[in-house]
């Protein structure tokens, strides 16, 4: 035994599925990176159709969110680097940025990021502890406080004679200056959902909807292309098993069911389900926002109820509420019920409960 080889043994337990002897499941960082990647096609199409404003606004939101996150981690005495590295801030910032209108003045996204990161996330205890979806909480606060700024959406660049360049966009965002002789109204337009609620199907929107070719027809204004790209990313997340099917299917199902029922009841007044699915932020909500692991229900049955409730509520708010799109409020409201949902939908532990089929 004396001529033992110089072998050093590591101490400390590592089994119980966390052994380095097995290839490991993705980490939080990997999960979040995949989500970001899945957002890229949607963001690309969005920017391509609606101009530089999209990228400028996303850039401001991301920078602000990271600054607030780092500051909060510092203040709370948490290790800064591992938490910045986990990319969950990036996902929050991107979702918030996508919810805000691209040409809003710079302090709108900064304010949104403040509420999302500082209030909704860190004051509730940080990653994993927050009960409100941070991106939606940030958006909701800004929406309630500055409804006017949040109602100006850019018109698709294809409809403009002279779309803004990068520099002009930056000047508009930071200084509020437009190129000489141009009015803000010239580059913004009401969204499909806006027009639906102000004019109904009988108005311009309705006419535009029915007159345009297929893809343009069901949601109008190029938004459907953006949403198709997000749908693609979402399906990829499903395929990569980053999210489970329950929430997207239930959410879109709930929304489509409501829209379908009302549309059938009165075709003249209520827009068809496709318009609702592709006309606003429903796709983004179904695959990216409502699936936020921290604030969503965790049990399979809980997820179905959670998703369906959000879908139904989105429709309710859009059609009967005071805001054109209801994603944020729906997600926040249903999020309140998650602890209860999880408690009441807890799976039946193996070996409890009566006879099996």
């Amino acid at each position, binding site marked *: 035994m004396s001529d033992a080889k110089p*072998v050093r043994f590591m101490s400390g337990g590592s089994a119980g599925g966390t052994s380095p*002897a097995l290839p490991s499941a993705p980490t939080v960082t990997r999960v979040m990176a995949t989500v970001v990647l899945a957002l890229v096609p949607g963001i690309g199409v969005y920017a391509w159709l609606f101009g530089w404003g999209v990228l400028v606004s996303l850039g401001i939101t991301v920078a602000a969110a990271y600054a607030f996150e780092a500051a909060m981690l510092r203040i709370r005495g948490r290790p800064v680097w591992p938490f910045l590295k986990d990319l969950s801030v990036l996902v929050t910032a991107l979702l918030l940025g996508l919810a805000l209108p691209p040409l809003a003045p710079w302090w709108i996204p900064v304010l949104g990021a403040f509420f999302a990161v500082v209030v909704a996330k860190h004051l509730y205890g940080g*990653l994993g502890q927050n009960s409100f979806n941070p991106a939606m909480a940030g958006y909701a606060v800004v929406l309630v406080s500055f409804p006017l700024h949040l109602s100006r959406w850019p018109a698709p660049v294809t409809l403009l004679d002279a779309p803004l360049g990068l520099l002009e966009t930056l000047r508009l965002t930071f200084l509020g200056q437009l190129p000489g002789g141009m009015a803000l109204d010239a580059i913004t337009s009401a969204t499909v959902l806006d027009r639906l609620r102000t004019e109904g199907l009988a108005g311009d929107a309705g006419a535009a909807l029915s007159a345009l070719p297929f893809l343009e027809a069901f949601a109008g204004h190029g938004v459907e292309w953006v949403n198709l790209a997000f749908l693609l990313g979402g399906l990829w997340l499903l395929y990569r098993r980053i999210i489970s099917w329950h929430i997207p299917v239930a959410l879109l199902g709930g929304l489509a069911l409501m829209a379908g029922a009302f549309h059938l009841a009165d075709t003249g007044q209520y827009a068809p389900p496709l318009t609702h699915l592709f006309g606003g932020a429903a796709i983004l909500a179904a695959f990216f926002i409502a699936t936020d692991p921290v604030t969503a229900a965790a049990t399979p049955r809980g997820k179905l109820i959670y998703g369906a409730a959000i879908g139904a509520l989105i429709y309710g708010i859009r059609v009967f509420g005071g805001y054109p799109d209801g994603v944020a409020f729906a997600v926040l409201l249903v999020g309140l019920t998650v602890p209860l949902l999880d408690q009441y939908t807890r799976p039946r532990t193996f070996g409890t409960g009566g006879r099996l089929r």
Partner: protein
Amino acid sequence: MKRRLWSFPGGVRLPGFKELSNREAIVPFPIPRFIVLPLAQHAGQPAEPLVAVGERVLCGQLIARPAALVSAPVHASTSGTVVAIEERPVAHRSGIPQRCIVIESDGLDEWLPPNADEQDPWRTPAKQLVERIRDAGIVGLGGAVFPSAVKLTPAKPVDTLIINGVECEPYITCDDLLMRSRPEAVLRGARLLLELTGARRCRVAVEDNKPEAAGALEQALAQVLRDDWAADMAVVQVPTRFPAGGEKQLIRVLTGREVPSGGLPFQVGVVCVNVGTVAAIHDALFEGRPLISRIVTVTGDGVAAPRNYEMRLGTPIREVLEQVLREDAQDMRVHIGGPMMGFALPDDRAPVAKGTNCLLVRAQPAETRPAEAMPCIRCGACVEVCPVRLMPQQLYWHARAGELDKAQKQHLFDCIECGCCAHVCPSRIPLVQYYQFAKHELREAQRRARKAELARTRNEQRQARLERQKAEKAAKRRSRGKPKRDEGAEAAEANGDEAAA
């Protein structure tokens, strides 16, 4: 014939790494100079030594006897002299040293002469067979090390005997090799157990990633059935999914029955025995050989030639490592058991014991050190894979917050510590360690409560006795003087109550 199979909830698909060690035949590992035999190689009470330091023992000789019903004897695993009976490091998760009998081998490996009056097992009554299984020191060799004799005397008749050759943990191949090399022993043992338990049918379950083992068993089964065509025995291949070899999961897969929460297999009419255990029972009953050795898989990228060894119990793991490690081995991590349910070896002086099925030796590249655990992001990945359908993240919150009663209410004790939840957790939380800790704390608390309860009742009894004595004295005193009627009656009543209680 295609048999209906059921499935269990959750589970994960894991890479097997079986081909590392399953290509070579089993070889005997040389008998070391010093053999260290722990008195507690089984679940239950440690055995009581029957030998003294300085005594010469023969291979197969009983050197420690069971101390309770749930306990098991220990036999000398080679001939030599007892040189110490003392605490030594053992291969246990806790790292706490335990009493061991240390034998210095005389190199002769001289066996105890066989017991001539043991009869043909086929003609021995079940009760006696169980006794012989107990006397041979046989415990569950799949890792649970529960005394087999206890398991084979269920409190209620059973109809199904399951022989578990699933071996679902990655890397481990000792059962695979056993089934390939000695299928007759497994099936003959199983046939006898069928008789012994009174079960109607026997199913030998093998995971479908081990076609050779299943083939060997099928062939041997044909042989058995030729002599004994009426026996309802079959080899069943089950889908490869961890933890298909868990007792409750396997029972579910084969029979569709669900062992009740906190219950035992016999409650649904099943006895489930590991293939290694069946072979050991076979050797004990047909060859009169007590449990003195076992097959151990030695594998992992730190091992020069991974394979299975037949090792004498008590072989110090350090000696094994010295012989099998790769030349350039550095900074090794040694696991006892598989990567999912095993544990890091706390001390390499610990010996191979009855439950040591695998030594997994891994070189540990610096960059794959287990990452820092991040906060739980409530993603529910753990919920999806839990084979017991628990909510692992909630158990974790409760365990972390010290709300052990809540964890218990959520069936913490049904957790089989399979590690599926921790394996998929994106935050890399060592969930199972929290459950083990919580269970340990709860058991301790229970033990303390029982003790306190015992002390309380003792104290109450003592108080009552003192009161009674006082009352008796007072009564006597009164009866000597002028008895006051009502008080005397009261005292008598009190005495009557006491007597009734």
